[in-house]
Structures are given as C-alpha cells and as structure tokens.
C-alpha cells in the first residue's frame, strides 16, 4: 500500500471545511448555492470512498501499475556534498506524465467513476494539470473538457496538442487576464450548468470544501511513501522536509505525513518572481492578506478594493494569486515556515541540479531545490553533521525547456551562460 488516504492529522479541517476554526482559520465553502448540493455530495462520496478498502486497493493498484508509483527516494550524493547535508529527493519527476499531478487526477477520476458521472472538466495554467486530467479521462473512458487561459494556450501549444491527442476538448478562455485564475472561473461556470453529470477535477488543494481536503488526501501518498522510505532506506526521519508552494498540492502531499512528527522541520517555498519587494511575485502567504478567492478564505494577492492582483513567476505552475487554505493555516499556526525564492534563485538551482545530478527539474521543483540550498547551513547547525533534508522533486523539466532556452540563452552561440 502506498497511500494512507484515510489517515488524519492534527491540522485537518472540520466538517465545514475550516482549517483552524471558522473565527480565526481558513477554508470554508464560499460558493453559489447552485453548486452546494454537488459539493456536499462530493464530500459524502469521498468520505465513503476513502473508508472503503476496495476503493483504496483499486487506487493503489492504479498508482502502481499505471502511474509507476511509489516513486523512488533518491540520495543525491553530489548535491549533498555541495550543501554539506544529506539531500534526499522524492522522485515524483519519474511518474507517468512527469509530475505528482497524476496522483490527483487518477484519484479524483476514480471517485468520479464511483459517483456514476460521465464527464470531467478541469482548469489548467501551463497545461500540466490539463494533460494529467486528459490522461485520467482517457484511462477511465470519461469525456473531458479543459479550460485554459487564452494567454496560456498561446504560449503552451505543445501541451494543448497533448491534451487534444489524448482526446480532451481544450477551451481557450479570453476573459480577465486570460490565465489560470480565469480558467478556474470558466470551469466553475461550466460546472454550474453541468453539475448533474460532470465532475470538476480541481487541480490543486485549494477551492471550496471539500477540494482542499479531497486533493490533500489523494496526494498525501507523496509523503506517506517518503516517510516509510526514509526510515527503511536511510535509517530514520529527515530533519527537514521541503517543497515548492503555488496552489500547494505537491507541498501538502509531502507535508501531511510529517505534520505530527514534531521534530521534523517543514519548509514551503513560494515563487518570489522578481523579488517580494518589487510586488511582482506569487508569494501569497508572505503577502499575508486574507481574503476569499475561488471558494475559500485564504491568503490572496489583492488590492484595497479586494480585486485580485495578477501574480508573477517564471514558473507557470506557481503563478497563482491564492494558496490552498490548509497552507494558510499551517503558516498562521506556525507549524510550517514559508518564504519565497526569486526567479533567479530558482533558475540557478535548475541549472545546478541538472549538472550535479543529471536531473532536469521542473522550474516549480527548482524553487524547492533553491529553498533547500538556502536553509542547508541552518539545518546543519541545528541538527549537526549528517542532517537530512528531504525535497519534493515534484516534476521534471522537459516542459520548461522553452523557458530555459530563453533564460540561459541555450540557443545562442554563447551557449550555457546565464543571462
């Protein structure tokens, strides 16, 4: 068994979806009445599914046989030597379709099938969740429509082609800023009209209750596997676990198994874009401004009227002006520390990991590598020689080569030099 989807932690939501309680906490279900019945049914269906051993066994089998899980926990020796701590990489980049996201869509699509619905919809930013959703829909024989901002369909033509090849309909969304948040709005509008036969495969551990809990339960296998692997292969728990945070699914997927291990430090790294002080970033938690976006109370990038401010990051997967509500609570409660990594720091780490280990990471994951590089000295100081940092290498970098070519000038004669 690779996932512990039925297990709970001290940081779970209550039955209304509040992390940390209604008065001081985050989450909830801020949605049109038209969707309430569907959200309540989804919650009930999930409670039933995760308590059903047959469902859990089927999910495990699909993850194993189709998605290539559990992913390895790999001791990155050359990076370890450079940082002076032991670095363990959770190799989610080796999963089918190249990232942790396959877990989320297979879990939600399996639940869709159990609920008797025949169509799935999804939003996508750069296209990774869209490709994963189209993959899961093909696997389960479901109809699939993916909403994607017009700006994103224009700059991610390869992923649009992949989705179409997999049989999905891709709908470009021109409204608003034409990016991820607008794709979410449009997917919600579809869902309001199609909810009787359609499931919304939400792409991250955010949105209205039960999505933050549902997605977390489904992706928590990342940490469940890593925790067992660390103990069995490396003799104990890591001293620190590290992940990048956009909407927050890869991070909550890793963190959940360690939340009640009080001795394990947990660090989340948001996208700092041009630098937090420039205002051009996606460091939502660091901005520390609570609001309601896409169905949940959480931290939001917004102006004084409550209008959403566009986020900025070189990583499309982290480029989101909100964050999953459980992360907001983990930040406020002090259990997890969140800081940000600039585009430059992330791209330096992207190059470093490629050369030190022969692994080209997703730029999202490069934020986690950069974060680990940053905290390595203090982790070593706190925990001594042999201190261990476990990093979620949430996806591979093939999809980011266009960005890398441009950033490093790889197509130029001065190949390989940073800009």
């Amino acid at each position, binding site marked *: 068994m690779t996932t512990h989807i039925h297990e709970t932690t001290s940081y779970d939501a209550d039955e209304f979806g509040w992390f940390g309680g209604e008065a001081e906490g985050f989450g909830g279900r801020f949605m049109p009445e038209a969707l309430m019945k569907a959200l309540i049914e989804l919650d009930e269906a999930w409670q039933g599914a995760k308590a059903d051993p047959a469902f859990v066994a089927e999910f495990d089998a699909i993850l194993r046989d189709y998605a290539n899980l559990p992913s390895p926990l790999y001791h990155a020796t050359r990076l370890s030597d450079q940082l002076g701590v032991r670095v363990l990489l959770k190799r989610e980049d080796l999963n089918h379709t190249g990232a942790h996201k396959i877990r989320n869509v297979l879990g939600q699509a399996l639940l869709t099938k159990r609920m008797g619905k025949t169509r799935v919809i999804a939003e996508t930013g750069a296209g990774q969740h869209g490709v994963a959703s189209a993959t899961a829909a093909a696997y389960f024989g479901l109809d699939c429509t993916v909403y994607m901002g017009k700006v994103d369909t224009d700059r991610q033509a390869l992923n649009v082609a992949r989705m179409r090849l997999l049989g999905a309909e891709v709908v470009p969304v021109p409204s608003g800023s034409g990016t991820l948040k607008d794709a979410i709005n449009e997917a919600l509008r579809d869902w309001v009209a199609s909810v009787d036969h359609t499931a919304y495969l939400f792409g991250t551990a955010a949105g209205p209750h039960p999505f933050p809990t549902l997605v977390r339960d489904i992706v928590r296998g990342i940490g469940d596997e890593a925790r067992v692997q660390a103990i069995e292969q490396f003799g104990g728990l890591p001293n620190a676990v590290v992940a990048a945070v956009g909407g927050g699914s890869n991070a909550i997927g890793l963190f959940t198994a360690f939340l009640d291990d009080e001795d394990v430090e947990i660090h989340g790294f948001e996208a700092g874009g041009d630098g937090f002080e420039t205002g051009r970033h996606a460091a939502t938690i660091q901005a520390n401004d609570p609001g*309601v976006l896409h169905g949940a109370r959480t931290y939001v990038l917004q102006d*004084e009227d409550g209008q959403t401010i566009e986020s900025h990051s070189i990583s499309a997967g982290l480029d989101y002006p909100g964050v999953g509500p459980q992360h907001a609570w983990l930040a406020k409660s002090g259990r997890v520390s969140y800081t940000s990594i600039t585009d430059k720091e992330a791209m330096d780490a992207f190059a470093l990991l490629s050369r030190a280990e022969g692994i080209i990471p997703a730029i999202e994951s490069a934020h986690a590598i950069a974060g680990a590089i940053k905290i390595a000295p203090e982790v070593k100081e706190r925990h001594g020689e042999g201190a261990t940092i476990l990093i979620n290498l949430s996806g591979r970098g093939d999809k980011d080569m266009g960005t890398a070519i441009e950033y490093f000038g790889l197509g130029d004669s001065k190949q390989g030099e940073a800009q």
Partner: protein
Amino acid sequence: MSTSVAYAKAKAENRAALVGYLPAGFPTVEGSIDALTTMVEAGCDIIEIGLPYSDPVMDGPTIQDAVQQALDGGVRVDDVFRVVEAVAATGVPTLVMTSWNPIDRRGVDRFAQQLQDAGGSGLITPDITPDFAPEWIEAADARDLDKVFLVAPSSTDERITMTTAQCRGFVYATAVMGVTGARAKTSDLAAPLVARTKRLSPAGTDLPVGVGLGVSNGAQAAEMAAYADGVIVGSAFVRTLLDNRSDEQAALKALASLTEDLAAGVRAR
C-alpha cells in the same frame, strides 16, 4: 427602504415587480447613473447595482464584458456607493449585487454602514450562502438591510428552508442551472422552483420570490410574472448598452423602450 415595499406595491396592483440590473461604472460611473435612472423612469420597480469584481463566478459573457469595461475604466468600490446614492434618490429600492471578496476586504460592518449611508436597501450575494455569511447576517440585521440570498433548481428542500429563513426583502430564484445571460426560451425549471420556494419559506412572512437569469423581453417577463413575484433582468439591459456603445442618446432610448416592454410584460400576467 426595503425592497419588500416595492413588492407589496406590485402585489396590490396584481402584477409582478420588475427588477433591473446594471454594473456600476459601465459604461462610466456617470453613464451608469444615467442608464439606471432611465430604467427607473421607464418602469423598473427595484434596481440592482453590480459591484465590478475581477473574478466573478456567476456572470455570463455579456455581464463579464461590461464588468471588465468598468474595471478597465478604473471603477472603485466608493464609486459604487456614489451610484447607489444617485439611484436611491429616485425613490426606488436599490440593492448592490456583489461577489463576496470586496465586502470581506473592506470589512463587513463598514461596508454595511456605507451602503446604508448611501441609501442602499441591502445586498444580493450570489457567491455566498447563509451558512457562510454569519457576519453579513449580523451586520444586516443590525441595520434592517435586505439580505437576498439565492436558491437554485439543484437546492435541496433543506437548503431552501435554511436560505429563505435568512432572507429579508425577497429570495432570488435562479431559473436555470447556469450563469447569467439572455436566453431564447425561459426555463421550465423556474416555475417548480418558485412553487417549492414558496412552500418552504417561513410561514407567515410571505417572502417574495424574484426569478432571474435569462429574461430578455416582455413576453418572457409575462410568462414569469404568472408565477413569480419579481422578474429580474440583467444581461438584456447590459446587451442594449453594449450594442449602442457609440451613441449614448440612442443607448438610453433603447434602454427605455426595453424597460417599457418588460414593464408591460410584468403587468400582463
């Protein structure tokens, strides 16, 4: 003034009330005041003023287009209160329809006070339900402001009971499963929903039921007026302004004639 006053007047005249919507700041702040005033003069009984928000979920393409124009024009929350003040001064009950975050950001109590100070009747809140709006319920109750929540064809009896118990002024029944927008045919889901809502509303309150989403002409309004207390029209007004964007006088004239058509419709039950 509560919208219930306008509903009572319509009922006394054995007709439905006509509720008209436009977003504040569309095409401009002054332009929206002129347009809404024209709609009042031509026969709207109640006005809903939309607060433009960057990430609306329930708005269809027509209203999104107008809201985006308003935002691009730099409309602010304080401008919305200015429009409320001007429209409420005509004597018709004037509501604000808004996504939740702008209220949350300003502070629920402060927003409620500013709305009351501007002469607003209350709020329509399409993306929040009473079970997640305790602060708004408290702020509205303290000031006797209208709290208009939505019910939908998908709502369970239990949720309609819960929702209508928290409404003041009227309850907004969304006639179709879907976002806003004019439709060629009215929905066959509307009449059963209105009947169910009336049956489940708190006894003795006679809470009016307004029906919205999809109405674009007098004939459709008459159809709905047969069973609803109020007919709510939004996208058709917005469409009229969008279609006449180059000529303000023509736009106001078209708006007035659409309003008259709809006003005749709600009287033809």
